[in-house]
């Protein structure tokens, strides 16, 4: 890495090398039994330079091929964007616990056992269900160096287990599923299994809904599938800078319901989305985005921050192997006071939504969403009466979050990018078949 940096520094005003190495093991189960064991090793190096004021960029997996990497970066710099930022000088980083040395000693046998336990729990509950499961562990090392002497490096371990069950009867297909992840080894499958069993219980009976406006409770999974992508786009400093964010000019204004508190947080201990610094070496920070319904911040990387005359919020991410861009680490929505049972009791006729398929395909920027209720339940007179199918739910994220009936008292992680409670909304448009 030092050599690449030195070589690049000869032809550029500034240079930065970002290197990632990872090793991952996965046990994959198909049709209720172990099918695949996989090991994946990967290394890559990205070089960003500023040459004659412009940004050049190249990546490679061949660490020995320094000259080619530098040449490619130089070639692209002819056309690159004007660099408006300065790479960070040496700085100190928060202590964020994301590595557990016990990860190495987790054996393949233990991983397989966890997967088998999960499948046994689910197939023991429902006859004929076909499950896929995955148990994975790994370690990722990140190193960043730049020509201003800035340097950061960290190691992160991760572990995940997940299951998806498919129950077919006639032409009807029911999909249930749950997953859990951590930077520490997980040794328990019960919590994940119980969520799936509850989904199976609630989906046992069928119920129909009318085509009209109805109150809706989004479960944490439901929030993830319907509401969160438009928000992640709208709070992206780049969308704001372009004038394409509906909340871009509403900083300091009350845009959402006063019950809503939302922030981005890469510093939570042992979360796979956490890290001591972002992919540009900026120390991690918790960034409040909505406080009591008021928009308080947007997310920035170095370049976007410089263009917007503000500071990086430590959200420079290289999610697709490209140049850093504003990227959320994990969105956290603060819990409220209502239990899920209380929310359900409050509804005369309505819906609980676990999974809204296709909601991310609409006009994300404008906040409109529309999706098929892949997993959802009908509520009648305060009780869940059965699973809803052949229905579409449509709305606009900004209207939905402007008037929230209640937020759930318990928060839950969905994947590694969102922690949220249930969200109870007074009215959404439902279109139902037949």
């Amino acid at each position, binding site marked *: 890495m030092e050599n690449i940096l030195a070589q690049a520094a000869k032809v550029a005003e500034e240079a930065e090398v970002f290197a990632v190495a990872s090793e991952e093991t996965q046990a994959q189960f198909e049709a209720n*039994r172990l099918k*695949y064991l996989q*090991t994946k090793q990967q290394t890559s190096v990205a070089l960003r330079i500023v040459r004659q004021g412009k940004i050049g960029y*190249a990546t490679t997996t061949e660490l020995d091929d320094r000259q080619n990497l530098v040449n490619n970066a130089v070639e692209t710099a002819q*056309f690159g964007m004007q660099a408006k930022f300065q790479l960070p000088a040496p700085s100190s980083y928060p202590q964020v616990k994301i590595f557990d040395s016990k990860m190495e000693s987790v054996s393949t046998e233990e991983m397989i056992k966890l997967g088998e336990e999960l499948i046994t729990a689910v197939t023991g509950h429902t006859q004929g269900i076909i499950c896929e499961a995955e148990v994975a562990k790994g370690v990722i090392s990140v190193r960043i160096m730049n020509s201003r002497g800035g340097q950061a490096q960290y190691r992160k371990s991760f572990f995940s287990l997940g299951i998806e069950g498919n129950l077919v009867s006639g*032409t009807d*297909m029911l999909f249930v599923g749950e997953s859990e992840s951590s930077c520490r080894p997980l040794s328990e499958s019960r919590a994940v299994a119980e969520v799936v069993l509850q989904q199976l219980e609630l989906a046992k009976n069928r119920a129909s809904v009318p085509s009209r406006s109805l109150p809706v409770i989004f479960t944490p999974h439901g929030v993830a599938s319907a509401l969160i992508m438009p928000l992640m786009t709208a709070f992206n400093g780049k969308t704001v800078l372009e004038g394409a964010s509906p909340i871009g000019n509403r900083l300091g204004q009350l845009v959402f319901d006063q019950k809503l508190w939302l922030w981005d947080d890469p510093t939570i201990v042992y979360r796979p989305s956490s890290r001591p610094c972002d992919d540009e070496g900026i120390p991690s920070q918790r960034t409040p985005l909505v406080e009591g319904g008021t928009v308080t911040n947007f997310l920035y990387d170095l370049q976007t921050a410089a263009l917007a005359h503000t500071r990086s919020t430590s959200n420079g991410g290289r999610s697709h192997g*490209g140049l850093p861009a504003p990227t959320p680490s994990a969105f956290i929505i603060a819990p409220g006071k209502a239990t899920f049972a209380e929310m359900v009791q409050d509804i005369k006729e309505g819906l609980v939504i676990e999974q809204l398929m296709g909601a991310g395909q609409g006009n994300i920027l404008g906040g409109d969403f529309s999706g098929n209720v892949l997993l959802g339940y009908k509520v009648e007179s305060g009780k869940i009466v059965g699973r809803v199918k052949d229905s579409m739910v449509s709305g606009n994220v900004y209207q939905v979050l402007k008037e929230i009936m209640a937020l759930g008292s318990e928060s839950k992680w969905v994947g590694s990018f969102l922690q949220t409670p249930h969200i109870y909304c007074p009215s959404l448009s439902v279109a139902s078949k037949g």
Partner: protein
Amino acid sequence: MTVEAVAQELTEVIKRHDADYIEARLEESQTSHIAYRGRELESIGRATAVGGNVRALVRGGWGFVSFNNLDALPGRVELAVKQAKFAGSEASKLAPAEPVVDIVSAEVSKNPVTIPLETKKQMLDEYNEIIWRTPEIQTSIIGYGDSSKKTVFLSSSGSYIVQERTDIILRLAAVATRDGDVQQVGLSVGSRGDFNLIQGLHQQVAQMSRHAVELLSAPQAKGGEYTVVLDPVLAGVFVHEAFGHLSESDFVYENDRVRQLMTLGKQFGSEQLNIVDAATVPGLRGSYKYDDEGMPATKTYLIREGKLVGRLHSRETAAKMKEKPTGNARAINYRYPPIVRMTNTYIEPGSVSFADMISDIKEGIYAKNWYGGTTSMEMFTFSAGEAYMIRNGKIAEALRPVVLTGNVFTTLKNIDAIGNDLEMNQGGGCGKGEQVPLPVSNGSPHIRIRHCLVGGR
């Protein structure tokens, strides 16, 4: 060392191991990309990558090891075999494969990655300028990417196949705003490496930009059931989502209830309906000569005269279902094992003209172009980039983008007219599990669907 030299060494190594089957794939690739957000070029870059994998099968269990460090390969082969032994618990089943030794070079005369960045940038600048010239456009989003990849496949049954392929994808979007309202319209095009095919789109880009502005004053559809006419692009997405994924037999082969549901011979649609998947069509983004298990590509009828007649297979799914392999095992890159995937999937043309198709619709929706689509096998949704009301047999006012949904077992039967104007769309990419976006193409003539559920206010 070149990947070919490494591959030569590996052929000896895999012979020494005790497994039912071993294969290895080695890849080297070059890519370039250019992205615009707004007027400014946002990102431009070049990447090179080398990597490979070894996959072993022992007693029905698979071991898979991927790497981009090409040293110490004997140890990686050993690990893959060890993992396979660990996972295996039954007899291995693979459809027989003739050993193939072949070299397939890229079809295009000019590797798109080697075209100067300046040429690519100039073309994108022209497109971007057209978007920005349109009044009330707030911003533009443009993403261009090309790749050139060489893959060496070798197997313990004696295959040794070198394949080269190139690919280009271009996505443009125009974003219009008015009073806090944001609307966007996109255009996706692609080619199997032929740069000429993505040039000269100026008129389409202008039309896309105007449409984004028009949407600001367009109403939202009222949710409910409609007679819907799909243009070839959207109908292609529909056939891919609504039926294509269900015909991938890795979802079928070990699930007895799904096997029953998908019994060959079952009636899925009207006699006019024919659905095909064919990697053998030359020059499309889903085309190839051999899949990632070294099996020759085929043309497979999935539905013929409305009846289910075939499905897509890997060697394992074909053997377990006692059907013929179709050469549909594909991996997005060396990091992943091949899984059953589509290639170029289309509805064969019928005889109805577009004018006839809409002439007797009193109130319906004409849905065009493509935002996205997804499936849960039984249920699917797909979204149109453009939509218009059809009133009394005529195209009427524009609507905001609509999301359509349906149930595959009823919706295919509700197709009651198939047009005479097949077109293939090259701008898509298919996702399955983590393997996204895989180059595929979809196509169809215009089709009409009765009782299609549309989301809306």
